[in-house]
């Protein structure tokens, strides 16, 4: 087997109560790398358009990458994938923390769950020992308490991935959580509900061996130098975490304000910013495995109505959607709502969008007090946020209705609600506005999981970052149109490779380039990878996910954006007048990808990528 890989994947059929290992073939490793790529091919081969996301036929695939568990900086991530119960399409979430590294150290490149258990269970994986244990005593616990309880039942150093009560109730905005109180979330796409449908409360892993590396002696000094460089170039993230993005993003018009209807919220942004968080509720910081940056924040609220908050603090995305989008400038309330989401096991991006949507729908009379149980959904009211998030978690009241997600709400409330639903393919928008970066418009429209800034991450090349290997010699004009389709496709290819390596994209902000990643992969595996090989792998992975969606009926009609983003200017701030012209950028994108005008990958392009066996 190539260096860097454990060489096998653990499969668990929960319906039969059986587990077995399947080898990772060298061919699959070279074709899909790992992480997101191996997850994609695993899910594609098992899950068809007829498979219900909550049926036993769906799979839940966890995959590390060949750099996981190595000294490579920020290599502690893993991907979780399956068919999304929220969108009915490709579902994936990438997460940091320590669970992925531990799975690798236990001797597995991945874990695939199939079938469904009749009773609640948790998995205990320690080397070759794989146990499916009853979880009746855990069912109903929140994620923080679940981690503590599972560690008591297994090992104090076990790493635990689990769902909260929201996942148990099959809520389509539920995620999977690791690292206990630090609350690392594979939040997007409702994959926590897939675990809930399989009756899997938690997966505890404990490993003991680092993966074999082909060139450990050569790799170590190279990555040590890279880690120092990354640390030096990501001072802002180290100082303030992703919360440090709030002020610049608000000023640049990249921040959601009042359900994405306004352009500026300067005073409010300062009240919930990274520096304010550092002055008020910061209790410490934490790192994911092998990370030189340490962008995680611990917060503690000691006084007032939200006293008792202790754990991972709100990330930028959470601050944008609970804060700006709901006009809530009470940082302690946001910390509290964030902790509720972490404990119940809910995606904060989805929850924030849904609360902002409900505030505007209430204002416009689409919903009223008769729908909300008398709750007045006023903009800026932190109690509304806290109440609705609590209801989302407990499955009660109007919050439980909201927690069914945008596709359900649009069906329930019709066209007036559709105009306020800030989602793509059913997935709520993260806190970055495509009106501030034209490439984000193409990226959101074409991302396989729905509205996602991470599948392309291209906006970083429109303001801050150059990368000649992608054809970006200097940061681009965010409002330029020509070339943005190509940029987005190239960036998606790179990010698909990054997600398949299962390393953190913040490495790129630290000056790591495609050539560095290829060299690290070469030294880890002992097989020569060049930058073009890596990008080609990424392109292959992205296209396979597209094929998954095409098989589910996705076409150009679905590659679009909320009407508000296409037609309504922000009106003030750094992106006051820009509306992204999606159609010509999409034409350019499809042409570059070798897709038809309707967004279907061509047979010839698929063959060039070695995807001939997947041609529909």
């Amino acid at each position, binding site marked *: 087997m190539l260096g860097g890989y454990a060489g096998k994947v653990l499969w668990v059929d929960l319906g039969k109560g059986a587990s077995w290992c399947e080898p990772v073939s060298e061919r699959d490793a070279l074709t899909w790398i790992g992480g997101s790529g191996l997850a994609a091919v695993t899910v594609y081969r098992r899950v068809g358009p007829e498979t219900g996301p909550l049926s036993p036929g769906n799979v839940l695939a966890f995959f590390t990458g060949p750099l996981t568990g190595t000294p490579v900086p920020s290599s502690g991530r893993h991907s979780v994938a399956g068919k999304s119960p929220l969108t009915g399409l490709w579902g994936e979430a990438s997460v940091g923390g320590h669970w992925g590294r531990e799975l690798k150290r236990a001797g597995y490149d991945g874990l695939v769950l199939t079938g469904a258990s009749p009773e609640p269970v948790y998995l205990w994986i320690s080397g070759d020992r794989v146990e499916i244990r009853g979880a009746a005593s855990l069912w109903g616990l929140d994620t923080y308490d679940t981690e503590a309880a599972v560690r008591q039942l297994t090992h104090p150093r076990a790493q635990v991935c689990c769902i909260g009560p929201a996942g148990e109730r099959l809520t389509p905005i539920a995620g999977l959580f690791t690292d206990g109180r630090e609350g690392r979330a594979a939040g997007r796409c409702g994959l926590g509900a897939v675990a809930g449908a399989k009756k899997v409360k938690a997966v505890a892993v404990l490993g003991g061996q680092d993966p074999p590396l082909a060139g450990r002696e050569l790799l170590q000094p190279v990555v040590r130098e890279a880690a120092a460089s990354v640390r030096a170039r990501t001072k802002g*993230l180290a100082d303030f975490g992703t919360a440090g*993005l709030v*002020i610049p993003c608000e000023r640049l018009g990249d921040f959601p304000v009042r359900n994405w209807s306004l352009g500026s919220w300067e005073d409010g942004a300062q009240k919930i910013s990274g520096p304010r968080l550092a002055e008020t509720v910061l209790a410490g910081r934490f790192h994911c495995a092998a990370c030189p940056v340490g962008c995680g924040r611990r917060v503690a609220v000691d006084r007032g109505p939200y006293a008792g908050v202790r754990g991972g603090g709100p990330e930028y*995305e959470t601050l944008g959607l609970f804060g700006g989008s709901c006009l809530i400038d009470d940082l302690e309330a946001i910390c509290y709502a964030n902790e509720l989401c972490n404990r119940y096991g809910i995606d904060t991006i989805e929850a924030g969008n849904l609360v902002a949507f409900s505030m505007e729908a209430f204002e416009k009379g689409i919903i009223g007090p008769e729908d909300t149980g008398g709750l007045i959904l006023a903009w800026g009211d932190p109690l509304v946020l806290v109440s609705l998030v609590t209801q989302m978690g407990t499955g009660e009241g109007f919050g439980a209705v909201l927690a069914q997600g945008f596709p359900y709400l649009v069906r329930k409330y019709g066209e007036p609600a559709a105009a306020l639903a800030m989602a793509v393919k059913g997935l709520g928008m993260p*806190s970055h506005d495509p009106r501030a970066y034209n490439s984000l418009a193409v990226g959101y429209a074409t991302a396989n999981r729905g509205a996602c800034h991470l599948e392309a991450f291209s*906006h970083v090349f429109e303001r801050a970052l150059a990368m000649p290997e992608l054809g970006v010699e200097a940061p681009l004009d965010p409002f330029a149109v020509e070339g943005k389709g190509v940029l987005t496709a190239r960036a998606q290819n790179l990010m698909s490779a990054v997600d398949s390596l299962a390393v953190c994209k913040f490495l790129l902000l630290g000056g790591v380039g495609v050539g560095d990643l290829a060299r690290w992969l070469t030294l880890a595996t002992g097989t020569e990878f060049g930058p073009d090989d890596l990008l080609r792998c990424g392109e292959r992975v992205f296209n396979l996910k597209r094929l998954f969606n095409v098989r589910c009926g996705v076409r150009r009609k679905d590659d679009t954006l909320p009407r508000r983003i296409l037609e309504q200017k922000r009106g003030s701030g750094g992106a006051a007048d820009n509306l992204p012209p999606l159609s010509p950028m999409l034409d350019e994108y499809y042409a570059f990808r070798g897709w038809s005008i309707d967004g279907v990958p061509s047979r010839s392009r698929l063959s060039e990528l070695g995807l001939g066996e997947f041609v529909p």
Partner: protein
Amino acid sequence: MPFPVSMPSIWTTMLTIEVNLLPPLAFPGGEARRLLELPEPAPVGRLLEVLHQAGALGGYDVSDLLVMVGDRVAARTDLLEAREMVRVLVLMTGG
């Protein structure tokens, strides 16, 4: 009271601009806003040098910073004009 940042000579025209440093940046006294006098012509890059010399950049490198004049992002070579309101902030991206 304008904050003098250089000694004007008899043939140099000075212009006054209002500078707003957004957190975590702040002037050494902790304040966020000051009126600064700069000799004309005053490119943005010169302003950043002045702020750096004044110890207002909190350990951040000049290359980490973003300058906005009104709602417009200014290039390092853009010339500032009298009485303009200039915001300086740490450019973070990604997230």
